[in-house]
């Protein structure tokens, strides 16, 4: 039982990465995704991988699956027919959201439709106050009438969200009992169980999203387990969550909302391992895909977490790795705006028709076309699944659409697309560093994704970062992250209380209660028998402020003074000052329980015994075509230092080393790019 296999389902391809947990041997496979039934591509992919590599199904210890079923259900509005029951007088909280327009000057901009049509949002007499006291008891007859309506409407699931249920969930629990009797077999989801925090719109929206995707996710996972059993493969896959952890298919079938936006989390988990392996504390992870650029921060060896986010314009408040996404990638299209400025994206040529040089009908010049024109990308490349790229078509598209209209040379215009898209990526990186009080000079940029290593060098220089790290396998780095994931459950609860005068023992008890709840879901047993570790976090603010700051609470007896000191330090880092004397308020108590899973070893890097220098080609750098040596990455021996300008090729990506830079191969085989001091 030594193999772990990660299956990352994407829009066009499903990437599989297998690792032998004894010796770290890596296997890869790629199959076309089957959106109509993603399980099909998954099983085919695993079967083919095992057959090709002679791995017996019995030798597979763990299947970890990054699924987009829930995300797609929301984006394409193909979730369950679900109803929402709420406090009388508040039927439209989901519709009104927070009352503001998505875009300031866009009078035609519409909020995306909630996942529950207004006709299925029902009101019931009940009211609990902010301090938990019951002002109006739950009107069972009214609920009974609602149940009748919902039976007639043949709903597949019901979400229940009452005001202040995060303080006193009694009415939500009572409603579930009555619903269970009235609508047997219909899944009921209570808002306080999804996320027990203040803010009715965010809580109700997250609960409705779970109710909307849960039946579909459950159906998919049941079918998947069946397909796996039929294929003789282990039938208890683990599912990747947006907090970078993973959970059992059973829990994912219940709390499906936690798998939304889990795609990019794999890259962050892999980034954490790279940081640990190379002894670095501060890392920016940047995933350059075809259409999107996902960025996250690892500071002091820990990822940044967010508890407020949104999907397709709908509030989604679950603990997740804080990832900032902008529409910039290999497929971003270069165009000229009304004022004559050269723009790049956010429109993208996507997978179809794709860049012009893919020859699948694309007419608009993209970032990939520009990289080809500049010589950074080779015409013979595996990026597009191993086909030749049409350089002539790319040059023509750049000339006709951009160069001639801007009276620039073709290379100059192509370089313009790259510099403009880099500027948008740089802005995204600045949002997570500079805007949060982090100094980019103390960070390294870990760049991955197919198109990433072509841009890493310039991005690091523009953001002022000291070095760029190109992992050994940038093309499947986030799929590799699936293999490193650990079983993790989180439990948050709003607890509004002044920090000063809080009884440390009571606070510790609250942490323990939340940790126990999460541990049970983790299957660590009520008594917490299976070895696991608990991380404790508090969200704090000055009384009067709204935005909170998260502070880690180390194990052992809780020192309130230390917590306050940490808060002041974080406030000073973020805003440049703090109010030492002002009262601090606890907002949320947050417990994270992670099951100790046997660590997956980082695969050792063994260079191929063949010459590393494989040729030379002209590359457009600093305004002219420069003959640039080309190296075969997997032939580079650790310790090798390559002076820029240089191109380093490997099957799934290409790395650009700028003239005044050098690339060094570290013991794990990572490429570390640094700028030479300007002599």
């Amino acid at each position, binding site marked *: 039982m030594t193999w772990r296999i990660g299956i990352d389902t994407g829009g066009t391809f499903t990437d599989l990465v297998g690792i032998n947990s004894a010796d770290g041997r890596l296997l890869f496979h790629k199959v076309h995704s089957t959106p109509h039934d993603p399980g099909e591509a998954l099983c085919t992919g695993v079967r083919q991988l095992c057959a090709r590599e002679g791995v017996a199904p019995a030798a597979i210890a763990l299947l970890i699956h990054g699924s987009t079923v829930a995300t797609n259900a929301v984006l394409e509005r193909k979730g369950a027919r679900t109803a929402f029951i709420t406090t009388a007088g508040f039927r439209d909280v989901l519709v009104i959201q927070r009352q503001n327009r998505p875009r300031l000057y866009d009078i035609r901009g519409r909020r995306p439709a909630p996942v529950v049509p207004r006709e299925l949002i029902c009101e019931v007499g009940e009211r609990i106050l902010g301090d938990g006291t019951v002002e109006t008891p739950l009107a069972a007859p009214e609920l009974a009438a609602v149940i009748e309506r919902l039976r007639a409407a043949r709903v597949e699931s019901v979400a229940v969200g009452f005001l202040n249920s995060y303080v006193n969930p009694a009415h939500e629990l009572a409603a579930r009992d009555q619903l269970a009797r009235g609508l047997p077999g219909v899944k009921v989801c209570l808002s306080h169980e999804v996320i027990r925090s203040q803010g009715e719109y965010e809580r109700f929206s997250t609960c409705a999203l779970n109710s909307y995707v849960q039946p579909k996710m459950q159906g998919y996972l049941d079918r998947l387990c069946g397909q796996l059993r039929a294929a003789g493969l282990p039938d208890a896959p683990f599912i990747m969550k947006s907090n970078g952890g993973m959970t059992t298919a059973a829990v994912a079938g219940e709390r499906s909302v936690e798998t939304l936006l889990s795609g990019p989390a794999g890259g962050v988990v892999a980034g954490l391992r790279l940081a640990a392996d190379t002894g670095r504390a501060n890392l920016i992870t940047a995933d350059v895909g075809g259409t999107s650029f996902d960025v996250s921060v690892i500071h002091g060896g820990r990822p940044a977490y967010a508890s407020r986010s949104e999907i397709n314009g709908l509030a989604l408040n679950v603990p997740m790795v804080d990832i900032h996404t902008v529409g910039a990638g290999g497929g971003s299209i270069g165009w000229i705006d009304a004022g004559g400025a050269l723009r790049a994206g956010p429109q993208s040529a996507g997978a179809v028709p794709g860049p012009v040089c893919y020859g699948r009908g694309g007419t608009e010049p993209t970032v990939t076309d520009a990289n080809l024109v500049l010589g950074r990308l080779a015409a013979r490349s595996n990026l597009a699944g191993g086909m030749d790229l049409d350089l002539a078509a790319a040059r023509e598209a750049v000339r006709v659409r951009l160069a001639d209209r801007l009276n620039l040379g073709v290379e100059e215009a192509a370089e313009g697309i790259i510099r403009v898209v880099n500027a948008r990526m740089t802005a995204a990186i600045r949002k997570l560093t500079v805007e949060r009080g982090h100094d980019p000079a103390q960070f390294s940029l870990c760049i991955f994704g197919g198109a990433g290593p072509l841009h890493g060098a310039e991005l690091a220089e523009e953001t002022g970062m000291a070095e760029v790290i190109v992992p050994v396998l940038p093309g499947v780095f986030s799929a590799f992250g699936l293999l490193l994931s650990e079983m993790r459950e989180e439990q948050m609860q709003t607890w509004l209380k002044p920090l000063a005068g809080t009884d440390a023992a009571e606070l510790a008890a609250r942490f323990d209660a939340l940790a126990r709840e999460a541990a049970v879901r983790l299957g660590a047993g009520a008594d917490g028998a299976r070895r696991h570790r608990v991380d404790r976090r508090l969200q704090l603010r000055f009384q009067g402020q709204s935005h909170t700051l998260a502070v880690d609470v180390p194990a052992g007896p809780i020192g309130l003074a230390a917590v306050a000191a940490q808060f002041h330090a974080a406030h000073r880092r973020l805003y440049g000052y703090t109010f030492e004397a002002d009262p601090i308020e606890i907002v949320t108590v947050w417990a994270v329980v992670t099951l100790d899973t046997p660590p997956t070893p980082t695969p050792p890097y063994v260079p191929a*015994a063949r*010459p590393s220098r494989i040729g030379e080609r002209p590359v457009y750098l600093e305004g002219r075509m420069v003959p640039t040596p080309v190296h075969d990455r997997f032939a580079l*021996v*650790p*310790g*090798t*230092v*390559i*002076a*820029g300008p240089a191109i380093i090729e490997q099957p799934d990506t290409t790395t650009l080393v700028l003239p*005044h830079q*050098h690339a*060094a191969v570290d*013991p794990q085989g990572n490429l570390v790019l*640094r700028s*030479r*001091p300007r*002599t």
Partner: protein
Amino acid sequence: MSDPAPEKLFSPALQPAVRERFLHADGDPFTGPRAYLENAGGGLTLKAVFAADQRVGALPDNAGRDNPASREVGRAIQAGRADVATFLGAPAGTILSEQSTTACAFRLLEAAALGRRGGNLVCSQLDHASFYDAAGILAARHGLERRVAPLNRATGALDPDAVAALVDADTAAVTVIHASNITGGRTDLAAVAARVRARAPQAMIIADGAQHAQHGLVDAAGCGVDAYVFSAYKIFSKPGFAFACLSERLAARPHAQLAGKAAADWDLGTRDPGGFAAFSAVVDYLCWLGAQTAAPAPADRRGLVAAAMHAIEAHEAALSRRLLHGADGLPGLLAHARVTLHGQRDHRAGREAVFAFSVAGAPTGRLVQEFGRRGVILHDRVSDAYSGHTLAALGVREVVRVSLAHYNTPAEVDAFLRALRDLLAPA
């Protein structure tokens, strides 16, 4: 260099006479009697070295003044330089003296790299960190490529072809370790130099003899290198001095010096004359040893030094056989199943009296402590700044090192083997 070394222990009379000339040969100043088998980290020091150092060091006034004392200081320095040339078998020309081998490495490699943007520096996984890191740092600083020749995992040594494969018309310099301070693997310097010159006549060939210098005769001129570097404290002198002989073309390369000085002058400022006198004391000792072991005794100092080095090599070869294969009923290092030797198993072929081994399931730190408690001084090499890259290439995280010198005796080897047997005996 290719025929296996003859084995011949010093005569029973000569052995004590040799040990008597060394400080603390028999016992440690703090812990008393022990077998000192950590010579790769810096051998014992000759008594005569301190005498000479004190004598010349005490002379008032700097060299170059017109008075007897100043003239004696100048003489001692010149004599010291000449003795370095004699020891290395180097032609007349520049003798560089620096703080350490590492300092020499940086100065020599920078001279080779300056102005060669776009070129490359070739080193190897067997290089000591002083040369390995210097190549990396200077390549990065001056816009060159550093190429790393893989070591031969089976022999723990460096194959000339592995180095030659990486050399081309843009190679600015090649660093070659003469013998590994970890595996004891010895490099065929002449073969490497010949192959490099054939493919890259312009490349400077810099040999690191810090480990080899005490174990075998150096023939710098003969093997065709541009520089041969060694640390004086590793051949029985005091620390703070490393010497190198430079070919004319290397000496002519741009390097740090006072404006007015001649191009071939590489010394930076006044050097401690005591250091030069100390090394002359070492050569005097070798001449004494040569006279004891060669019949008839050669007339010239170089001949005597050569004779001494051959005698040293033969004595150490005999000790090596004893250590590997055991004697008088004592099992050798290779006899123990739990012991893995990293490097050449044949004590006569391409290796020196330095052995890296590991014991299954036993952390090296604890092993060194256990041997220490049994009066056998060893050392372990771990994946640190010094040995990380070499150990990674060998595919191992840490090793214990036992390294012999010509003043060691068969009895001291037996003490090691006894301690090893006791440690491996089932509890």
